[in-house]
């Protein structure tokens, strides 16, 4: 187990390096100049040349790549061309917002999706099952941004129950300080974006849970437990669910990754000040340092999550070595 852990961690290194190189290459290939982002339409040809020189963009590519890695190793992610602040500072101020959204949506998806799947499995073949699965099927088919705009129109504008944009008090801060007003504010801003983001995963999870549970309920040891006269509920939770959760856990781990990606659109619609929105804007404005830094950080996060899921898997069932 220990050796597996070390091996997994070591494998992270080339992956992250590879991702960093791709991030670097992507940004280099983007048509458009950061000088334009900085100086706007008022920029002149001479200014552009001077700016490129300042940013080191006129050096040969391998040199730029080398310098890039050296700077990253020192922890210097550069300064945003449009926002005039260190990239690392921008990332550290926006990442918590994205994590808050992603984690909350995951909690929602798990908290509603798994019970729904269990419910449907227990009533297999009957009307509630069909209905639940139909809803789930629709859930994985609806585009996220459509859902987001609809929710804003209904809950924020027509009904005026919830705010239409932005983030409230950071959730962790509100919980830690035990500030009820802050907590309410936090949740009110969080609800619509989290639901929007969770919808797809919720639907997916309910389907997977239902499938996994049904699979397991066919297994011999379940029949044995039933034959021994165990109560159905115990059979379900003690024996079946625990084993069914194995594939579900994997999916949840992967969904965290997809939640980070899906946050991009959700953050744009709701004006949520997270990293997804930051990167999309940076791509549009050709703010190279931000794009590079943010993609690198996200890649690192992803790899850690994926690696974590694999480790969790290996931990839960030592027979399994996903390699």
């Amino acid at each position, binding site marked *: 187990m220990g050796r597996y852990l070390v091996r997994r961690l070591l494998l992270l290194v080339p992956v992250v390096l590879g991702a960093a190189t791709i991030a670097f290459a992507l940004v280099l290939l983007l048509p458009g100049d950061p000088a334009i982002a900085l100086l706007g339409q008022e920029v002149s040809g001479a200014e552009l040349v001077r700016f490129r020189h300042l940013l080191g963009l006129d050096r040969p590519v391998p040199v730029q790549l080398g310098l890039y890695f050296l700077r990253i190793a020192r922890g210097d992610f550069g300064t945003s061309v449009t926002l005039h602040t260190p990239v690392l500072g*921008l990332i550290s101020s926006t990442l918590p917002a994205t994590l808050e959204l992603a984690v909350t949506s995951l909690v929602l998806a798990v908290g509603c999706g798994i019970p729904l799947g269990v419910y449907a499995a227990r009533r297999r073949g009957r009307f509630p099952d069909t209905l639940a699965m139909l809803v789930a099927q629709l859930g994985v088919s609806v585009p996220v941004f459509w859902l987001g705009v609809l929710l804003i129109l209904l809950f924020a504008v027509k009904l005026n129950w919830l705010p239409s944009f932005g983030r409230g008090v950071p959730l962790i801060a509100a919980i830690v300080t035990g500030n009820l007003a802050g907590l309410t504010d936090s949740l009110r801003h969080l609800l619509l974006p989290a639901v929007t983001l969770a919808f797809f995963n919720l639907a997916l999870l309910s389907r997977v849970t239902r499938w996994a549970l049904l699979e397991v309920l066919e297994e011999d040891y379940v029949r044995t437990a039933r034959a021994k006269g165990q109560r159905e509920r115990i059979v379900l939770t003690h024996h079946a669910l625990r084993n069914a959760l194995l594939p579900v856990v994997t999916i949840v781990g992967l969904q965290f990754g997809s939640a980070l990606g899906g946050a991009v659109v959700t953050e744009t619609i709701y004006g949520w*000040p997270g990293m997804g929105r930051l990167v999309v804007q940076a791509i549009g404005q050709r703010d190279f340092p931000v794009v590079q830094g943010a993609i690198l950080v996200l890649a690192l996060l992803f790899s850690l999550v994926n690696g974590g899921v694999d480790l969790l898997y290996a931990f839960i069932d030592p027979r399994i070595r996903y390699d």
Partner: protein
Amino acid sequence: MRFRSSHLVLGLITVLTMATGGSVRAAPASGVLRIGMDVDAGTLDPRLANDTTARRVIEQIYDGLVELDPQLQPRAALAESWSQVSPTVWVFTLRKNVRFHDGTPLTAADVVFTYTTLLDPNLRAPLRSLYIPITKIEAVDDATVRITLSAPYAPLLKYADMGIVSRKSVEQMGADYATHPVGTGPYKFVSWQRNSSITLEANAGYWKGAPRLSQVVFSIIPDNTTRAAALEAGDVDLIHSPLSPQDVTRLKTVPRISVTEMTGLGLTYLNMNTVDPILRDVRVRRALASLIPQQTIVKHIYREMDRPATSILLPAWSGIFTGDIAQPTHDITRAKALLAEAGWRATDDGTLSKDGQKLSLVIRTHSEDPNRIQVVELLVSILRSSGIDARAEITEFPALTQALLAGNYQVALLGWLGLVDPDRGMFNQFNSKGSQNWEKYNNAQVDALLNEGRQQSNPGDRARIYREVARIIAADLPYYVLTYQGYIVAVQRRVVGFVPNPTGNFRALWNTSVP
């Protein structure tokens, strides 16, 4: 604890109840004005600011030597008075007893520092080119500043609203100054959550008197529709252009909200590359202009939020603007005749061609503005039905600007903002050496006129000069001006005393209150 679905459901219900909290939204605090903006500020250093949000925030934190009133006339701000002692020398007398937010007094040294650093190429100030005629700026004494120009420069006063920075703070903080601004303005900087909000509080010691608001919060809501929805829902108190036309139409019907429309300082135009083989011929440019259904576009796509333009002269330039100078209007017959005259004949399938080459045009614009995308879509379909092999190319703004700089385009739908003065709207665009003359327009007569206009302070002469330029441009058509952009402010009625300014500036916030 056992995993029980009922626990989860209970938990979820609790959360939801809390979240929708008794459904009554808390009444907004008095004395606090919440403004919805579309982009995050890039920097809060007035010398480096290049986006609207930055400018709006900076207007509260800083003062300039002058400020521009709704008629675009300069009035005293940090400079109590000024005089032009010779055609190339101006002297400004500063107001006494003005302090920066950190308590230090404002002196002429700060003014000199601001403009000197502004002119320094290493600072890369976006608006540096507007101040190039300044050759020397010096502090005669603590309260007097003398500016020497290379040649008479009429628009100088219009650009003298540049925020004055605190020399001491800049030298102390260096690059951090951009995120911790220190100025003399009516509101002090409190905090800045990137991409989320900027908070300011009142400067009780403001030289004009304490402002009426205790706090101003700028919230960043990029999506136009979401921002309008936020205003309607009461989450913000004030929003302004850019706005979606359909949102404006709807906001006008909401009783709690007051919508003010005025003609602004921007225009939307088609930039035609005058050195492109096809567009080189002025008849083709005129034909193109004649194919554009300007009134329809303004009425249906912009929903009359903007006005149809007649020439490069802006209505806001009072004394100079006249509607008598006009570009070619919508006339399909004339368009066809012009194209035929230029040698373009229809082939079997209806497309026009000359010497075996098709009349192909690519119309570009940027993807950030959905109205412009629709205009381009419409134009492409109209051109195609007239036999022109037209195609749209929509890219993001930086990619488009790069193409413009390289001259790598045929037609582009673009805009200009903040044209406080005809010089601002014409010099760099049409002078053959102009830094924004992407269309490579070259007309010696226009060059001479523009140079003269720059130096000419007499209003009558300026009117004559710029009208003549406009006349030539309307005939030569390096630009076809599509609309004069409207400037729209939508504000909750409970907000008192906000006077919109066509430049878009919010200096009126000093006198605004929220009871």
